[in-house]
């Protein structure tokens, strides 16, 4: 019964968090200021596939995940699930819909109730959605635990008795218990050591093959995305800057931010460290961002147009299945990140596309 369209689609999804106004500001009746956490994001996840969302902290990737799971109300925009709009679902309808979308949260300690036993934690969605109780629920949980690599006899243990990886497996088991169509994984491995991270990532991939879950993998870990995801969307300050097939984007990034982000990831390969692509500056504030491209202040290729006109996500000629939001995408597309040493151009100076050569060896 798989529909040809995407499983989940967002259209121009926006989430603003209004700032608290002081009494004085309120009396002045100035405009309400807001944090533009997600600002017009259109992405889609195909059934049985994984979309990776990468970006730094403050890029809005977690907020986007929460919006899609309907844990936050959106400010504007639409969320379509199998073609039906779910943005306005409430009450019973929302509750029934929730069995389609489950979430694994970032913090494996905070997301598990310390007073609940394993069978209660993992069984809670089944109890809420299907009304399973008591012995039947315990039996269901017992059958479920081996699928995430936990021993079935740990039913009566508490979360604190598990290691970080074990807790994340519990969280995963809870999410999978009602057979959702989409699992939102919010930084599932960022609290884990590399060896444990590899185990969890392997399990995620195996589960997807067996049971055809779609994943929305939210992470800052580029390597994990490369391994798990089929497509990837790069977020910067609440907006998608680049979308495409994962290997294509990670190996031939077009947007200057994607290039910079990928080049900044430390790779455990000592031969690669001689070449660096540097972006200066830090993530600007999300409170009432200025017009134009959000990356303009840090971008080495910035031109005047970037500061006034907001680039739209568009297809690139000659690159099917790739969308980039950059005015100069065609020009910068082939600039290899490894060949550039860029520093922030002083404002007003003419931008150049001259490769500056690798950094001097240390």
């Amino acid at each position, binding site marked *: 019964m798989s529909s040809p369209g995407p499983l989940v689609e967002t259209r121009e999804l926006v989430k603003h968090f209004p700032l608290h106004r002081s009494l004085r500001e309120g009396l002045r009746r100035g405009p309400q200021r807001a944090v533009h956490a997600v600002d017009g994001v259109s992405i889609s996840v195909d059934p049985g596939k994984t979309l990776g969302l990468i970006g*730094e*902290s403050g890029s809005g990737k977690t907020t986007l995940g929460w919006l899609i799971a309907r844990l936050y109300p959106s400010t504007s925009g639409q969320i379509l699930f199998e073609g039906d709009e779910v943005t306005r679902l409430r009450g019973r309808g929302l509750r029934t819909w929730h069995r389609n979308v489950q979430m694994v949260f970032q913090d494996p300690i905070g997301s598990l109730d310390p007073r609940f036993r394993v069978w209660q934690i993992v069984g809670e969605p089944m109890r809420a959605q299907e009304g399973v109780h008591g012995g039947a629920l315990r039996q269901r949980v017992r059958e479920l635990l081996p699928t995430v690599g936990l021993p079935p006899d740990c039913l009566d243990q508490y979360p604190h008795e598990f*290691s*970080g990886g074990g807790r994340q497996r519990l969280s995963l088991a809870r999410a999978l218990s009602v057979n959702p169509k989409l699992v939102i994984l919010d930084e599932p491995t960022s609290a884990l*050591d*590399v*060896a444990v*991270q*590899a*185990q969890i*990532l*392997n399990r995620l*991939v*195996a589960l997807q093959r067996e049971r055809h879950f779609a994943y929305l993998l939210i992470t*800052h*870990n*580029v*390597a*994990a995305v*490369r*391994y798990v995801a089929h497509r990837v969307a790069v977020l910067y300050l609440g907006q998608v800057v680049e979308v495409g097939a994962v290997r294509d984007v*990670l*190996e031939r990034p077009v947007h200057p931010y994607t290039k*910079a*982000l*990928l*080049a*900044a*990831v*430390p*790779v*455990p*390969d*000592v*031969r*690669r*460290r001689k070449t*660096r692509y*540097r*972006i*200066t500056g*830090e*993530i600007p504030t999300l409170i009432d961002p200025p017009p134009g491209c959000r990356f303009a202040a840090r971008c080495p290729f910035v031109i005047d147009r970037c500061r006034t006109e907001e680039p739209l996500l568009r297809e690139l000629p000659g690159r099917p299945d790739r969308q980039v939001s950059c005015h100069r995408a065609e020009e910068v597309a082939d600039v290899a990140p490894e060949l550039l040493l860029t520093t922030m151009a002083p404002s007003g100076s003419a931008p150049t596309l001259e490769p500056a050569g690798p950094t001097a060896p*240390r």
Partner: protein
Amino acid sequence: MTEPVLSVEGLSVDYKVGAGTFHAVRDVSFEMFPGRVLGIVGETGCGKSTLGHAIPRLLPEPPAQIVAGKVIFRGVDLIQVPKWKIPMVRGTGIGMIFQEPINSLDPAFRVSFQVAEAIRVRRLRESGRAMMFTGGPTPFDYSKPRPVGTAESVSHPFLPTLPASGGTAAPEPASVPTTGSLTDEVLEYLRLVRINDPETVLRLYPHELSGGMRQRIMISMALSEKPSLLIADEPTSALDVTIQAQVLTLMKELLEEIQTSILFVSHDLGVIAEVADDVGVMYAGRIVELGPVADVFERPRHPYTKALLRSIPNRYQDDGPLPTLPGSVPNLSRLPPGCSFASRCPLARGECTLDPGPALATPLAPPPRRVNASACYFASEVEGLP
């Protein structure tokens, strides 16, 4: 041969808590040389942070207890220094950068005060009006030689130093320098760590700064003591990748500007590959492999290093499941005799469960001598592992 800045010999640290004694660091030995970066890498709970904190005696004692070993810094064994003299040791030659910059800065004071405080303490010590720690044959150089005769400091290693009549004594300030009078020097340090617009940053409180800025402030405070050894405990783990890259680049540049050595503790193999000259891989409290970073990463000679490197998802690697390690890290309070990696090791044989493996035979030395030492009897077979 160059003298080591720091030499750690057979250091063992235990934590005595209700549940038992946890052997967090066991028989660790290494030497650090001027201008070089030693990376310590390992998983959570391998003892790498304990090691980093044990060197400047920052561990709470108890529950921590340094049960054996020597930490020789400038000719003095820091382990032998009595507890009440420890504050005199801190900030004299060993700088420290911690993981969470927001926890290491005082939220109630402005940046200018906090950086100036570090400078003020150094000034007071230089002028002899604060108790300071001298000792050993090498004087504590605050970029200039100490105004103390070497023989004197050997005979009275822990006495407060007075501005001696002989030698190149620093000009004594009239009074305790105030934050205001130190502004120029504070600005200089803020510029050193590439902070844009330092005049504005001076007046800010830590919560008004971003994570990358806070970590730069921490680095500038550590550098204001003019340390010859900097211990950085996961300094970039709380930062985003682009900011992390900036801080790492900064640290590498500073390494050349101010001659110092860095002990860089991290769980991130990528970061270690980026900054370190030498690397020590820790597992269950021991350093299992120690050597130049290129050799350790490209031709590991301990099965644990090999397994750790293989389990990283790499964006340059082909498909197929990620290789994983069977089993889990042993409990540090009930360590088995023999090699603690034996239960997970593909090369393990009978003797591995009896004997903890060969001692790391070849200590680090400055170039050109380059070999990586492995605490494994079958180091030569590691290369053949998948």
